């Protein structure tokens, strides 16, 4: 446990000393503002909720999260510090989970800094704050899913650019899996059960209800499973690299 804490602390610190944190947070805030107000028609809708804000999160994360996750392992491999880290007397789990948690906490901080939006809707009307809280939690869980995928892709390559692109692609697949456009493609020749399975893998399907403020146990379970599965995959990738 203490190893995990030490790693989370170190990783989280490194975001802020490299200024990556400030650049990322700034871009995140600007873009979420643009999406909410211009594309989401926040004012024109005349409703006191944050649905237009949350709706765009999957798309926002699609290119912002890989920018965070790409450095998780690629950078260590490139600089050689991975040799230092993995020869310290720690469990692989602590290293993988510690790095992931630091990145996840960091996106949580970025998400929390959008609080002026919450203040705004509360000023303008009487929103369902429970629904907003559910939206925030759900969005954070989804960010975790993206990050876990990114962690695995970053462990695969020593190039951050490749890690970024591949993470973006895999995340896109997961987002689009539930898209009618994609599902229609398979509709005619794939059994219904596979189609359902495919759709149920979609980030979008699980997030759409969350973005409306409904945080069901099933969706939470889905995102937690995605995180666990991809972190396990990260550990497997590291182990394969150790042996090959």
């Amino acid at each position: 446990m203490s190893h995990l804490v030490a790693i989370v602390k170190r990783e989280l610190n490194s975001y802020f000393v490299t200024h990556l944190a400030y650049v990322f947070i700034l871009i995140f805030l600007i873009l979420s503002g643009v999406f909410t107000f211009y594309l989401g028609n926040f004012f024109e809708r005349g409703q006191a909720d944050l649905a237009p804000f949350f709706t765009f999160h999957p798309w926002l994360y699609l290119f912002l999260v890989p920018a965070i996750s790409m450095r998780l392992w690629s950078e260590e491999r490139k600089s050689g510090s991975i040799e230092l880290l993995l020869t310290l007397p720690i469990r692989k789990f602590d290293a993988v989970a510690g790095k992931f948690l630091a990145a996840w906490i960091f996106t949580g901080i970025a998400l929390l800094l959008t609080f002026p939006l919450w203040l705004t809707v509360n000023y303008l009307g009487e929103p369902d704050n429970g629904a907003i809280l559910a939206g925030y939690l759900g969005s954070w869980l989804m960010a975790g899913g993206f990050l876990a995928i990114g962690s695995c892709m970053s462990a695969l390559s020593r190039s951050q650019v490749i890690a970024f692109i591949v993470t973006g692609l895999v995340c896109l697949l997961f987002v689009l899996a539930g898209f009618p456009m994609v599902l229609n493609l398979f509709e005619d020749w794939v059994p219904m059960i596979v189609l359902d399975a495919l759709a149920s893998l979609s980030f979008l399907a699980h997030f759409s209800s969350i973005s409306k403020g409904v945080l069901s146990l099933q969706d939470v379970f889905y995102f937690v499973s995605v995180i666990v599965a991809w972190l396990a995959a990260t550990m497997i990738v590291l182990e394969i690299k150790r042996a090959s």
Partner: protein
Amino acid sequence: MIEVSHLTRQFGSLRAVEDLSLKLEPGEILGFLGPNGAGKSTTMKMLTGFLVPTSGRISVFGHDVGDNPISAQEMIGYLPEGAPCYEDMTPETFLNFIAEIRGFRDDEKRRRVDDVVKKMSLQQVLHQKIETLSKGFKRRVGLAQAIIHDPKVLILDEPTDGLDPNQKKQVRDLILGLSKDKIVIISTHILEEVAAVCSRVVIVSEGKLVVDCSAEELEKQSRFHGAVTLILPEDVDADLLRSQIEPLSSVDSLEVSGTSITVFPKDNRQIFSVLSGLLTQQGIAPESMFQEKGRLEDVFRQITTGESA
């Protein structure tokens, strides 16, 4: 004690380490030599648990690195090749992080960090980012993290590579100053270093162990062992002297280059006194005259390439 048995490591079709067996006792300082790509770093990476052997076992004080890496890693201090660090940290935050991972808290942690900072003379750069430090300081930060927990086993991959002569001496003194119950493994290209610090030498070539002996024994294998080199004043006719030395019964052969003559004895005989007698007789005062202990470079080349200087 470290026991390595039948260690083999395959990278694709390349066999980087082949059937390497080795036993090390506390107090030994092992010089791990070999040309680039001979498998030194790969072996060290397996010893520290970074790479998994294709076959073979490693045990560190009874802890099997394959089955129980964490227990083995607790006893090991490791400086990887090139001394990689977290460059965005300062030596202070970096060493504190390592100390925490090594299980030290509060006062003990502070004491450990202070101690290695002093030992490695890092005081003046303590709050500077590691990426801004010179190579020498970076190497010292890497060494500091390797010794912070006073490990029983110290594995250093080219610890003096890229350092200036003063820094090299500092690192050597540090290694010699370690308590005598440790096992130290150093890989290096610098052969004088081996003579200076190592009690034992292992040479690997193409992944195989080819020599395992003490540094002195290695010197004895050199054809220069026991040879006498004379540096003559310029006005002495070297060829004339040559014709007088060559017939001596204890002399096997000699080599002249410029004003220096190296005389090789027959059957390891002592020829120093014979030669100095001859020079006195001839009224020649050489600028210097010394008996060679053996040239490690020469042995190294002989063993790893099959040719001699």
